[in-house]
């Protein structure tokens, strides 16, 4: 499984293209003065689940990962 994912050239190419298009599309900028809605506290990119909900989720699901806790932010400041 690991070998398939890491060493498959098509997978690497697809991920590289996805990443490049992701970055490229970001360079159609929204000026800072237009980002008011993004600054609303409910728009944080972090997981809104509390510790209790997150713990229950970790126990009840066999999957993990996907947290955005340290990620990005809206770039509003």
């Amino acid at each position, binding site marked *: 499984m690991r070998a398939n994912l890491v060493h498959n050239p098509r997978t690497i190419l697809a991920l590289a293209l996805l990443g490049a298009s992701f970055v490229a599309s970001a360079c159609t900028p929204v000026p800072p003065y237009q980002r008011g809605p*993004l600054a609303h506290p409910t728009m944080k990119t972090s997981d*809104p689940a509390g510790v209790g909900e997150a713990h*229950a989720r970790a126990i009840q699901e066999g999957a993990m990962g*996907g947290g955005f806790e340290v990620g*990005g932010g809206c770039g509003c400041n």
Partner: protein
Amino acid sequence: MRMQLTQAVHACVVVSLFITLLPTVAHAQEVAEPVPEPAPASKDSAYDVAAGSELATYADNDHVFVVSPSIAGNVSKPASGWSVGANYLVDVVSAASVDIVSTASRRFIETRQAGGINGATQWGKLGVSANGNVSVEPDYGSYTGGASATYDLCDKNFTALLSYYHGYDIAGRHDTPWNVWNHQINTNGVKLGGTIILTRATYLAIVGDLIFEDGDTSKPYRYVPMFAPGTVVTKGESIANVNRDRLSARALEQLPTDRQRYALSARIGHRFSWATLRMDERLYTDAWGLKATTTDGRFIVTPTQRLEAGPHVRFHAQGPVDFWQRAYTMRTGLDFPALRTGDRELGPLVNLTGGATARVLMGPATNPRKFVLGIDANVTSTSYLDDIYLSQRTSEVIALVVEVAL
């Protein structure tokens, strides 16, 4: 009985909270003024100090009950771009689940304590953060440290993320010295992703996780019943029938001693003038053959400056690990299957969660977030698709939240 007691306690807490909050909400609606967006945290101070507490309870129809009080605090200096924080929680678990009963064991009560510290700073376009966490219970310890970096590109329209953490876990057994019996697990995790601003009200975040675990994570108390070849064991078979049909020999759980996990996740957030929509999707696979999809959606309505509330739904479906069997067979000569488990979270299952969240912002008009009271309530229905003992479980998590900005 315990479930009924739990529901009664929850009902009392919920009713009490809303009786307390109703006058405040009514008053808030009367005096609500059309301020476009919430005011920032106290600007009259060079430092922002915030604290929060959560009291969460978990209960399910498999006789498991958990109470988790937690506190967290954070100090930041927005002008300099740094912040430090700490958190602490206690889990008190009381369980008499079907897995415990099936091994003729009694209800157990156990306490876990966990704490963490974190810090972050910003140097121009570069943001750096680090954190450390410790979790301790009588027969298990977990120690994690990590760091991450973010970098703003395209005039902050795109923020790239790279993070790494290392975890060290040690599992022991009750009444056995650590130096006599222990399993050690080392985990390395890498996260790579970014957040992009799509429109003036929409962002998209994508992150990939690579997690490598090295060590034996088999549970030292989990016995797996063995059956003779040809024995028919139906889904959800009762404890009595399993005990009648199984062989006398039982084997402890044995899992592979390493695991590579891969997850690709996306989150999109959109702000309407009166509400926020957040949708998450996670695709997951690992070296044990488990594949899963998780979809999570929240719709938070903000009808006034004082209230944020709305529904939450979550759907999770997964297939089994490669070595999953409802009933493991043993050949003569104690020839156990090399890999075996009774962990339902490694089998095929579907989780459907429905819930709601509410936050009442009770601070002064200049900063309503100075004092926040909230409640989150979620009910999860789990269908186990290929298990003995249990084919369905209903659980609930209710959390009361207080947040204060000093």
